């Protein structure tokens, strides 16, 4: 069955990939290793998960503004997720993508999808993201 969701576009773009749904909010700085591209916080439920190429669904963001730097670093090394789906507007990750574009490291879509609607996105599901903010599951 195909599910169609509508996110609000924060950074425009299209993407396709498997959902990586985080069990808890994360701070990219101190939570994601910019060398391996994996979640490095041992207390995080998705510890060791690899972000590369995934549609990363975040229930929330916490912590440091240096998270923009970590996302930029992931994009420079081609270790970044294919897309970000955040629960609330988030300027810190959005900034990382804006800087990446200025640096010619590419761009990824950033969509806002409130947490109740994130329930329709299951971990591992294949999804397609459109430039209009649509999220097609299946």
């Amino acid at each position, binding site marked *: 069955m195909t599910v169609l969701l509508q996110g609000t576009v*924060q*950074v425009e773009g299209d993407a396709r990939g498997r959902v990586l749904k985080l069990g808890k909010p994360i701070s990219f*700085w*101190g939570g994601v290793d*910019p060398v391996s591209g994996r979640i490095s*916080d041992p207390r995080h439920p998705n510890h060791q998960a690899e972000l590369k190429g995934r549609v990363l669904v975040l229930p929330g963001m*916490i912590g*440091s*503004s*240096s*998270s*923009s*730097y*970590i996302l*930029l*670093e992931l*994009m*420079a*090394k081609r270790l970044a997720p294919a897309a970000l789906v955040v629960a609330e*507007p988030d*300027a*810190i990750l*959005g*900034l*990382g993508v*804006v*800087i990446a574009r*200025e*640096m010619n*490291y590419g761009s990824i879509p950033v969509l806002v999808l409130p947490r109740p609607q994130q329930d329709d996105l299951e971990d591992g599901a294949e999804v397609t993201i459109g430039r209009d903010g649509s999220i097609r599951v299946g």
Partner: protein
Amino acid sequence: MPVRLTDQERAIAAGSDAAAMAMRILAEMGAMLGAERLIPVTSSHIDGGLYHGDSGVHFAERLVEGGARVAIPATMNVGGLDLLKPDIVKADPHRHEMALRLMKAYEAMGCWPTWTCSPYQAGHRPKFGEQVAWGESNAVAFCNSVLGARTNRYGDFLDICCAIAGRAPDYGLHRAENRRATVLIDTSALSHALKASDVFYPVLGAWYGAEIGSAIGVIDGLPAFVTEDQLKALGAAAASSGAVGLFHVAGVTPEAPTAAAALGHQPPERIIRLTPDMLRGARDRLSTVKGERIDAVALGSPHFSLEEFEALEDLIDGRHVNLPFFVCTGRHVVAELERRRRLKPLEQAGVTVVADTCVVVAPILPGKGGVLMTNSGKFAHYTPANTGYEVIYGSLADCVNSAMTGRVTRDESLWS
């Protein structure tokens, strides 16, 4: 909604130099943040000089190559190296070189090489009501709360763009209507002795950040003689455990002559009566281990002030510490300690003074982990993830006494 740029701003953004790039980034981020326009800002504190990877170095060097200069006074937050004692940071040659290149790039743009997270104690003090663009969470909290200047929580990349453009997106804490407290924290159930002690303030901050998060609170019932270093410790701990950019202390901070004034003379949405139990819980959460083992002491997050060094010297009292003992501070304080001939006695007592950087952002601590004791709520928060050390929180006196005896000893009398 796009940001409405002035003709002058549009002309700058249309160029091909670094000023154009900074203006484009500001316009794009302004739209993302819901700002309708950019506003002039008069000072900046910049957090982007700390190395987390080569991409940030390439970004800063791209700005330098594009002729970027800061348009307003801009101080630098900590870097990844101690430039006064290069051997203190145990980085591999690549990391060392890139961390240095990053620091030099920001200097080349005209930023002041202060390399401190306490710029407000190094002479950078915007006036009440001044619009500024600051990064580094503790500096943002201090700037908004204690100085009454107005900044959002700017961070890596956006802070330098604001400093180059001399502008910031008009949203959030730049606007008076967003600075009002909605949560009232009543501390009248806590003892005066506790509220007069330094060890209380990081704990209060850690509790506040975790409980209130990004909301704005007014803390009522603190003594009017709260010191600047106590407010610094409170803000730093609060901004570590939560997204705190502004807090008010009734009768102390400038936008809170009274609790009612900080609340904008409206009823609070939430009232929290702080109990000794709640604070004990917050204090316990600042430590990750119990027991007597201790391997090192670290002080100075935010960077130690001259007054804090005086308190430390009184406690050491001519004795020698028996464990690795680090105090992080700015070069503005190191110069003053040297001028007053106080640096050498501290070093002879076994104290390692770290400047320009600190022990949770650069590899400085010895060996492969152990137990670190600190009087800083911010160090307590970041030590486990960033250094691999376990952490124990205590007062400054607890830290000194434990370093003398080699066993953790804590004065529990204030907390009972």
